[in-house]
């Protein structure tokens, strides 16, 4: 057995068995399903007479609420372990990134524990999102002048 073969065997042993296909399939159907649930809520609120504007706010609020409950009872983590980006990318992932550190860091105090850690991931998301919107707003304003 030469070096190359040795290395190949070593690499094969340590590389997980093509997990990427399985990961992607899980992410696809869980992520797709969460969006379908969002659409169902959207249709429901509209059928109850909510305006387009109100529905646009109610749907994320509903999904954030559900993600908070699921995080609290420990179910979110169990799904997320298998779903990967399927639970991360929808607004549920953002909600989980706020709720989980809130619960986990409560013991460290209300101000620097819960209060600060709540933004450990949401902070950068809000910072760079807001920054991008301000840059776009400036460009949009300037373009609008001409």
């Amino acid at each position, binding site marked *: 057995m030469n070096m190359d073969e040795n290395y190949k065997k070593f690499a094969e042993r340590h590389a997980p068995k093509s997990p990427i296909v399985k*990961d992607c399939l899980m*992410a696809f159907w869980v992520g797709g399903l969460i969006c379908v649930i969002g659409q169902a809520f959207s249709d429901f609120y509209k059928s109850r007479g909510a305006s387009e504007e109100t529905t646009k*706010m109610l749907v994320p609020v509903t*999904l954030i609420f559900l993600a908070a409950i699921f995080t609290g009872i420990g179910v979110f983590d169990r799904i997320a372990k298998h779903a990967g*980006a399927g639970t991360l*990318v929808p607004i549920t992932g953002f909600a989980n990134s706020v709720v989980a550190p809130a*619960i986990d860091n409560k013991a460290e105090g209300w101000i620097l524990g819960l209060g600060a850690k709540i933004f450990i991931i949401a902070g950068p998301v809000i910072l760079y999102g807001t920054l*991008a919107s301000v840059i*776009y707003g400036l460009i*949009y304003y300037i373009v609008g002048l001409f």
Partner: protein
Amino acid sequence: METLITYLSVFAVGGVLCVIAQILIDKTKMTPARILVGYVVAGVVLTAVKLYGPLVKFAKAGATVPLTGFGYSLAQGVEKAVDEKGLIGVLTGGLTATAAGITAAIVFAFLAALFFKSKPK
């Protein structure tokens, strides 16, 4: 029939947006935090270049529920605020449009911390 097609587009587009992130995580070892930040900023940029609006029309919640949709709300909000209020809208538009989501996340997180205990991993 039309509803079915809508829901299939919602499922497919939402699923694909998640798969892209999954590939980035598996292939580039990007951390979840970077994915979230990247998706929001990408949503703003794609809205600015007029690509995301048509996707939202086509896939509805399939495009608005993923975090790129959060970026879409930020960008749309700033457009609307600039149209209505001029330059000051640059500062108010983004967070005004996303206020409900951000406030909900903060309030529900606080309440969850009151009611639930941390679980051993």
